[in-house]
């Protein structure tokens, strides 16, 4: 079998969550109201619609395979006792609980797949303790990155790591996703490196503190193991100023090589981004070159390693794009990712987690597919650690053009397989990428699966994610391979 048509059969839906209609609507709601009060629980259609969405800008048909994509209830919690109470109600009725922060995680991470309770944690938003001497902060999960920054700023401190979705995400949601790449992570470490402890309410309603090696499993567990109700994280002094350097390159190989050389320098950047011409055209258009590399350093301890960078850039024939271009790149760090969405109905994307050394190979393949399949693709990458990059491959689509849509899915699927083969995998797992979990991260998959089985035997916590999924890798593999092939065939037929 070639890689293209390899079929891996995996039983679908391994979790014993009931697929029966949710029992006795009233009794569940009444019990939930008993826990959180009337003003914090709802089963109106309006709230259920709102609390079932996230940024997965996929047309509705994509969701057909999800059995019940609307939550049955929406509950907002403010205390640990309330979280325990809600989990208790869910357990008694055998219905799912879907923890929800800012709902900015893509790929359906916090959207229901079997109805259940959308558990909104944004009201648990207190900064509980700032210990400047120990360099630690203790927070509730619904704290926004802005609020945390303001609070820590009063002490001249900062968290120093945050996702580019920091305007909409909350800390608990980022922990839910595992926070490997963000602004600050290349120099200050990933979220896991910065986590000191977590307080979690387990599916049986008990409270536990997670520390040390176990943090790795709970960080990035997408709410399948319980609800994070408190986190203690490392903090650091806030840099007085930063400097962003941006360079244009005419060849893909050159931007990737320079990027690798920059990651190897001793001084690590706060932020490093690469992107293609088309991606840039929607936020900060390139006047020189076809690819951009932007890199930001704190300026106080040491200044940016400008000489080393410029040497690497010169050897690759790159051009400095000017101070104001760099400043704009930094200012756009939150928004550039979704700016292209303004110009298309569906911004389909796949996020990969790949070694910086393999970025060129993946992008070369993606650009080749873009040409061969005539798919309107764009891409950008953001450094996570000194050796790994979050690479976002996007396609700007009109869902009415079904073949283009499905072919793009097929191409993105190929890219994930390529990343897995090279030791990487999908970045965000959520609902849609859970099919890749076992292949990409087999060890993590089996450890999580074991833990899930013992901690959540009735499978109420955020089902169909990470350790199991509603469809199989094999089925999706066939579908996508065929889809990509159809598109190529279509080209010849059209001719």
């Amino acid at each position, binding site marked *: 079998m070639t890689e293209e048509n390899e079929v891996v059969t995996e039983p679908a839906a391994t979790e014993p969550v009931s697929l029966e209609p949710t029992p006795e609507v009233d009794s569940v709601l009444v019990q939930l109201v008993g826990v959180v009060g009337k003003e914090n629980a709802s089963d109106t259609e309006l*709230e259920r619609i709102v609390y079932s969405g996230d940024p997965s800008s996929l047309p509705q048909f994509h969701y057909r395979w999800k059995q019940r994509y609307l939550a049955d209830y929406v509950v907002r919690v403010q205390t640990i006792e309330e979280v325990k109470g809600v989990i208790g109600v869910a357990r008694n009725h055998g219905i799912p609980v879907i923890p929800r922060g800012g709902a900015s995680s893509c790929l359906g991470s916090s959207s229901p797949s079997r109805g259940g309770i959308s558990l909104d944690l944004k009201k648990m938003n207190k900064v509980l303790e700032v210990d400047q001497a120990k360099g630690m902060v203790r927070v509730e999960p619904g704290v926004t990155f802005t609020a945390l920054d303001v609070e820590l700023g009063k002490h001249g401190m900062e968290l120093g790591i945050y996702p580019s979705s920091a305007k909409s995400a909350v800390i608990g949601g980022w922990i839910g996703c595992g926070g490997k790449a963000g602004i600050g992570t290349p120099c200050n470490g990933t979220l896991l490196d910065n986590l000191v402890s977590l307080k979690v309410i387990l599916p049986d309603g008990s409270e536990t503190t997670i520390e040390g090696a176990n943090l790795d499993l709970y960080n990035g567990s997408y709410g399948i193991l319980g609800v994070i109700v408190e986190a203690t994280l490392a903090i650091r002094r806030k840099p007085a100023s930063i400097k962003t350097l941006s360079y244009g390159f005419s060849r893909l190989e050159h931007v990737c090589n320079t990027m690798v050389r920059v990651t190897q320098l001793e001084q690590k950047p706060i932020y490093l981004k690469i992107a293609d011409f088309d991606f840039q055209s929607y936020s900060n258009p390139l006047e020189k070159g076809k690819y951009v590399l932007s890199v930001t350093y704190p300026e106080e301890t040491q200044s940016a390693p400008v000489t080393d960078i410029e040497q690497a850039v010169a050897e690759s024939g790159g051009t400095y794009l000017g101070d104001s271009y760099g400043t704009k790149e930094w200012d756009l760090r939150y928004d550039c990712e979704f700016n292209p969405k303004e110009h298309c109905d569906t911004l389909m994307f796949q996020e990969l987690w790949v070694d910086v050394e393999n970025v060129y190979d993946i992008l070369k393949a993606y650009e080749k597919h873009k040409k061969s399949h005539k798919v309107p693709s764009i891409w950008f990458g953001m450094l996570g650690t000194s050796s790994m990059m979050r690479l976002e491959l996007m396609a700007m689509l009109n869902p009415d053009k079904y073949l283009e849509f499905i072919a793009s899915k097929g191409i993105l699927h190929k890219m994930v397989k390529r990343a897995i083969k090279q030791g990487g995998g999908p970045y965000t797992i959520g609902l849609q990428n859970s099919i890749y979990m076992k292949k990409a991260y087999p060890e993590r998959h089996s450890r999580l699966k074991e833990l899930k089985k013992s901690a959540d035997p009735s499978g109420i916590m955020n089902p169909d994610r990470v350790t199991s999924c509603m469809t199989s890798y094999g089925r999706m593999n066939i579908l996508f391979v065929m889809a990509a092939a159809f598109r190529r065939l279509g080209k010849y037929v059209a001719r």
Partner: protein
Amino acid sequence: MADLKKLEGSGHETDPYICASCGNCTMVCPTFRLLRWESYGPRGRLQITKSILEGNQELDEEYVRKLFLCSLCEHCTQVCTTSLQLDRFWELIREAAWDLNMVPAPVEYACKSIMKYGDPFSMGSSSRMHWAEGLDIDIQDRIEQPAKTAYFIGCNVAMKPRSHKTAQSLIKILEHSGTDYTILGEKEVCCGGPLIWGGNKKHAPAMAERNIWLYRDLGVERIIFSCPSCIQSWPKTYKEAAGVPVQKEFELLTNSQFIDSLNKRKALKFHEQSNITVTYHDPCISARRLNIISEPREVIEKIPGIYNIDMLHSKEDTRCCGAHGLVNLTDPLISSQIAEMRLRDVSVMPASRVITECPRCLQALELATQTMNYSVQVQDISEIVAESLAEKDEEDDR
């Protein structure tokens, strides 16, 4: 969907589909920040709108209530990743609600009152000059006198006692600077803005025009407004009605822009104040729509002894006072709670006064000082300027 046919041809029909659901707008929305249900925030409301457009949901009372609890503060528009002009979108949906007879009763009352009495409070033209009571300057000669500069008082300043001082202060500034000016007296009518916010946009241009025709007859070239929302609604209504941008015909200035222009001509003389620290609250429409950011700060800076310290959320990132978009009519309690949230931003500043340039911000923040029992003086920018002007003999001494 028939209910939302207003969207057709508006250029906004695809907005709910363009939205990337990133959620940036949710976190800045004052109504979401207060009520904490995502359905009150812009992303949530766009999702419901999408559902209505697809026929899966009714344009029902619950949705309309949420719609009218939006203060049209434009903060969502400011942060939108996909550059949606969301405030305009909400106005369009409000128009659909108006056509369906679904707008909240107090909103309907205010809109009908504007058409009948010329103001949203049913007070009528005989109350238009109440603001001048107690003013020690004779302004009778100014009423409907030809002049190049006009002062448009606006309903909130003319009829709400707390804002009378704003108008009186501006008159003092006009007189001090020797500006020849005119006012419309009892002939002034509402700018038409609340009709747009209430969903009754089609009647708004007529209101603006009633003022504009008078100004034209008086040879007016520039108009000073004590309320930025009046400026905002004029170009909109008039432009759309007559095809001529009103800015091309008249120069439209807020209090701070006018005072700043006087300062640039050195037309104002101040006496030294005793080290007063203030914080400037940017009205949403001034900062986000009209881009009036530097002028009020420069005006404050020019008064010797007065210092401005900006709040964390200021300039384009200013936070709403809760009184715009007719929220103060739809639900006065929610409106005042939003004002309290804003006053909390003020309360962390080492400032003894909060300065603004919008009568609704002024009234909302002042009310919040009462409900929160927090002592800080709230003033219009014209007030702090007028009380810092040098007396005539002080001027002569110089």
